[in-house]
């Protein structure tokens, strides 16, 4: 950064440096997402006792690029009475929100794009904007199926956002900060000095579960994917989308999956901390690799649930969100509060 500032002046050098950093975050992330889609096809394949994509490139490894090319060359179809501006705008909103969130995501204590001291709030705020992409996509296509899908998605996402927010409140209570880096640092001491036993997931176990399940509901993944329930409403809110516009929806969905996994690993699973005590040398040292491993494990979970569970009925989804998760989180927040003022407090 200093050399850039020498060449380009203070302000411009800083700007160019941030631009390079942004590209350095977004490009690897996009490639990772492409391989998450490939992993999903492969893992689902093995779970269904078939091979999965294996034709393009060695072991099918070039499949995501083939998919991308196919999306690019497809015709962009626009329904006759669609509201054209909003129709084009909706997938872009969804994708922008999905990418913007990564601005405050710490990948390790040093690898972070911007350090915001209300990082958790920023993530909540920006990811809550993503729902607009879905509602508008559902509405703009001027199709009953897509509208129904959009309505379902909105109601579901708003309901689960609450449960998710309450789960995060518990994390904020024990860490006493809105800064994601500090939240991870707060988990680095305690039982066995920063190993797997001192992370937040043990004392906050109910909240961890609620967060994970609400995360699946937030990203509209199976078994909560009624908003694209193909047996009832064709494909939900993106029925009318084709080609690259559809690709943007897919990209945003997988980006959100990665985001939920990354947040869960930062807040509950110790982020870049190693699961082993620090005295164990190599395996005990923290680093980006551990975060990557945790994110991959959680993503595997996402795909696994899709292959395992049948789709929920819509009223069951609403029941789970409002009548089970929110009471559970509220009670646990009270328990946590009592725990923190009692002499048994472990978060000093």
């Amino acid at each position: 950064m200093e050399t850039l500032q020498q060449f380009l002046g203070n302000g411009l050098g800083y700007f160019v440096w941030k631009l390079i950093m942004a590209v350095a975050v977004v490009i690897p992330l996009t490639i990772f997402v492409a391989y998450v889609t490939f992993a999903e096809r492969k893992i689902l394949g093995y779970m269904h006792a078939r091979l999965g994509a294996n034709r393009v490139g060695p072991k099918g490894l070039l499949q995501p690029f083939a998919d991308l090319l196919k999306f690019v060359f497809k015709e962009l179809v626009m329904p006759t009475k669609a509201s054209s501006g909003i129709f084009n705008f909706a997938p872009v909103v969804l994708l922008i929100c999905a990418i913007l969130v990564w601005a405050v995501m710490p990948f390790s204590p040093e690898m972070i794009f911007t350090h915001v001291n209300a990082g958790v709030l920023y993530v909540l705020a920006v990811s809550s904007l993503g729902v607009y992409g879905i509602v508008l996509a559902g509405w703009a296509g001027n199709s009953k199926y897509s509208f129904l899908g959009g309505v379902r998605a909105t109601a579901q996402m708003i309901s689960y956002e609450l449960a998710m927010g309450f789960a995060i409140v518990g994390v904020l209570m024990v860490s006493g900060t809105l800064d994601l880096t500090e939240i991870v640092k707060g988990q680095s001491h305690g039982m066995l000095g920063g190993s797997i036993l001192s992370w937040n997931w043990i004392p906050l176990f109910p909240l961890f579960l609620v967060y994970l399940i609400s995360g699946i509901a937030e990203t509209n993944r199976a078994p909560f994917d009624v908003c694209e329930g193909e047996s009832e409403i064709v494909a939900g809110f993106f029925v009318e989308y084709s080609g690259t516009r559809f690709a943007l929806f897919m990209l945003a969905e997988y980006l959100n999956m990665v985001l939920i996994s990354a947040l869960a690993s930062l807040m509950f699973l110790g982020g870049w901390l190693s699961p082993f005590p620090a005295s164990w040398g190599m395996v005990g040292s923290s680093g980006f690799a551990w975060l990557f491993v945790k994110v991959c494990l959680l993503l595997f979970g996402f795909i696994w649930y899709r292959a395992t569970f049948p789709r929920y009925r819509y009223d069951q989804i609403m029941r789970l969100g409002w009548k089970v998760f929110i009471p559970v989180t509220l009670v646990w927040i009270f328990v946590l509060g009592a725990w923190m003022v009692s002499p048994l407090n472990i978060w000093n």
Partner: protein
Amino acid sequence: MLTSVLFYVFAFILVFSAISVVTAKNPVHAVLFLVLAFVTSSCLWLMLNVEFLALILIVVYVGAVMVLFLFVVMMLDIDVETMRKGFWKNLPLAIMLGIIVLVEMLVVLINKPMVINNIPDLANSSISNANQLGWVLYTQYSYPVELASLILLLGLVAAVALTLRKSEKNAKYQNISKQVAAKASERFEMLNMPSEREIIEEDPQEGDKK
């Protein structure tokens, strides 16, 4: 320098979107302009270093309230022509109301006690403003906060009471407790089917004869 340029850019967008909320023909576009207005005002707050309030504005208003707004507006089948019918008839009344609101706001804004003189230097303070707000809200203003939360709870209960469907005698609805109490054994039965007997191999020669 940069901050004042940014301020004017945001202020322009804010005023433009606020006017567009009123002038937009399509109600959905109007709601979207309102969302833009909220987001830009949150950007203005961010420039004042009150990141907590700015982000909460987005979470609460843009992320939840406006989505429900949009939801309702999309569901309504609004005919713009019928809405514009009484435009000239209602214009004088609207202008009068507008002037009253304008005067009220001017009175409030010009009034000296409303001007905040000692704005704390938030950018250089060591405590985050979420912390500061929390301290003030839950110590100095704890009773008003409790009162406000009670009022909100009342609103919540009232909204739930409005949707209670017990009053409608002929309404059909699912009995959820009955549904949840249903057991798998009531819905299907596992039968033990003995597998088919092995097919007795026919004499191949016999088949040939046929």
